[in-house]
């Protein structure tokens, strides 16, 4: 699963969003710099990203599900919420690790790598939200948002 998420993030992650050292850290390169046995952050953050995006989708389409929250502009608001949450999480987790020195000291990881990964996570979150809400099969169960997508109504 780690490889799956790694391939997703690195699809546009290795260059230019963040360095390969950051990629190794997220794969779970351990603090002793010996093997990929540390926390597999790609998997965790990827699953959190999916969970948050699905929750935001559920929030708009099935929990709130109100006529006055069903327009295109509301879709963009909820998409922004998903993006911001996922950006924050994807930034905070590696950044805290870097600040605490909890990574292999042979890796060179900076602030811009954390930002790049956060951006990558936010982008995937946006794409996932876009896909879930564009395919009618999911949103058709919503009462008030069954036609709500990024371009209409």
């Amino acid at each position, binding site marked *: 699963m780690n490889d799956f998420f790694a391939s997703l993030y690195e699809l546009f992650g290795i260059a230019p969003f963040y360095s390969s050292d950051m990629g190794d850290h997220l794969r779970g390169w351990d603090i002793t710099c010996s093997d990929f046995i540390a926390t597999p952050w790609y998997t965790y953050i990827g699953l959190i990203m999916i969970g948050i995006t699905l929750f935001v989708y559920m929030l708009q389409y099935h929990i709130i599900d*109100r*006529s*006055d929250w*069903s*327009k295109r502009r509301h879709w963009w608001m909820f998409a922004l919420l998903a993006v911001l949450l996922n950006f924050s999480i994807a930034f905070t987790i590696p950044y805290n690790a870097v600040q605490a020195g909890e990574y292999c000291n042979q890796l060179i990881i900076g602030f811009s790598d954390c930002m790049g990964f956060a951006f990558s996570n936010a982008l995937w979150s946006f794409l996932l939200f876009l896909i879930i809400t564009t395919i009618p099969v999911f949103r058709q169960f919503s*009462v*008030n*948002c*069954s*036609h709500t997508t990024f371009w209409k*109504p």
Partner: protein
Amino acid sequence: MARLYLFAIGGTGARVLKSLTFLLAAGVKPGGRNTYEIVPVIIDPHKSNEDLKRTERLLEDYEAITKAAGVDNGFFGTRITTLKNLVSTDGRLTGSSFTCNLQQVAGKKFREYIDFSSLEPPTRALADILFSGKTINKRHDEVDLLDIEMDIGFVGNPNIGSVVLNQFKDSEEFKEIASNFNADDRIFIISSIFGGTGAAGFPIILKNIRDAMSNAAIDGKGFLQNAKIGALTVLPYFNVEKDADSPIQKSDFIAKTKAALYYYKDNVTGNQSVNTMYYIADTFSGKPYKNDPGDNGQKNSAHFIELASALAIIDFLKIPDAELETVEGSARRPVYKEFSILNDAAEITFGDFEDYTSQLIGFPLSQFALFRKYVNEQLDQSVEKEPWSLDKPLVDRQFLDDSFFRTHLSGFLSSWDDWLKEMAENRRAFAPFNTGAGLDVLVKGKTVKTGWFTPKVNYPYYNGCLNKMAKGQKYPDAEQKLLRLFFNTTAQMLTSRFGFK
């Protein structure tokens, strides 16, 4: 399906018919277990009468709406059809859709109509006595009664009206009604008693129906002679401005009513010609109408009494057949009815009705008012945005541009606005709705409760109810969808939030 042949005579007849049309549009169902098709026959020689023209337009819109959407949608739930539609042979009926085509009297003096100069001297002398007296013509000149020009009606002269309207028995319309009339069908006659056309027309039409056996020119005599007949006679209920030059004087209303009632005592009720007779009146001295004998088009504001009168027709159709038995043209158990309200209020709301009336019309009229309000204030913003509009069949911009909506439904709803406004401004007023206020205070006397878990009744809530109601429903076309969806949604909103039972 059984039919109700509904004769609406004169200006009052047209206005009562208008009220009935709005009740039927709102979903009030005439008839108990039976359903009826309504066949209005408007009888008024005053072709330029604005009340008549407004009612005709309304009926045409109603008919067009039901033709497109059918009658299974709650709103517009009763078919109204023209006599022409029942006739198999084209071209036999030449009048307008709902109006009986009496021989044209426009531009003709009564003297010419009866061919006074060709009458034998004794007959002429009799006519001179019967039609003596003075009246005014449309130019407000004083003229002999015989010289009255009848294109503005009979100007409160039933003696003239009775002669002219007697041509009804020879009309193609009467022949067609007779040949189409079945045992289950019913007849209802609406007239006023204090004017010219209604007071004269009612006994004549009634007599011609009951005497059908002696009319050689018609078929279906037996059914017609023993038809179940209801009649409504509207006694004075409005005030007119004082005008010394006008032949219409309020002071004459009571005298004319007494004279007509005296005549009815022997020739209508006395001989048991009617199965159920409804009398309605209001002594409330309200806002006077413009004193218009007819030359300015006679456009009177809608009045609550006309709505109450329309309820007589609904009531008549609920009476079981067994109670309307007629033998050889005579009703076995004639019944006479009146109508009352609970409170003698100058401005009536649903709370001023007895429970039965309140239940009968309060709920459907409120449904229609909610529907109207949405169409007026919200539809344009919701179309092609809300799921109920976007789910197939589409209620989209193209639908709004089609004649069903743009011409007929919009026209009908605009007339509804006028009708409510006129009744609300009249005295006594009927003003059950705060039409200009928010949705939650639309129905006077009904409070919408809101709280933490009960949302406000506003348009987002309304849209939510529409979306929920439309979810998973199949509609054959957009016309039926619009009417049925709003009927069901407004019913749900009124019961769940407005405290209707």
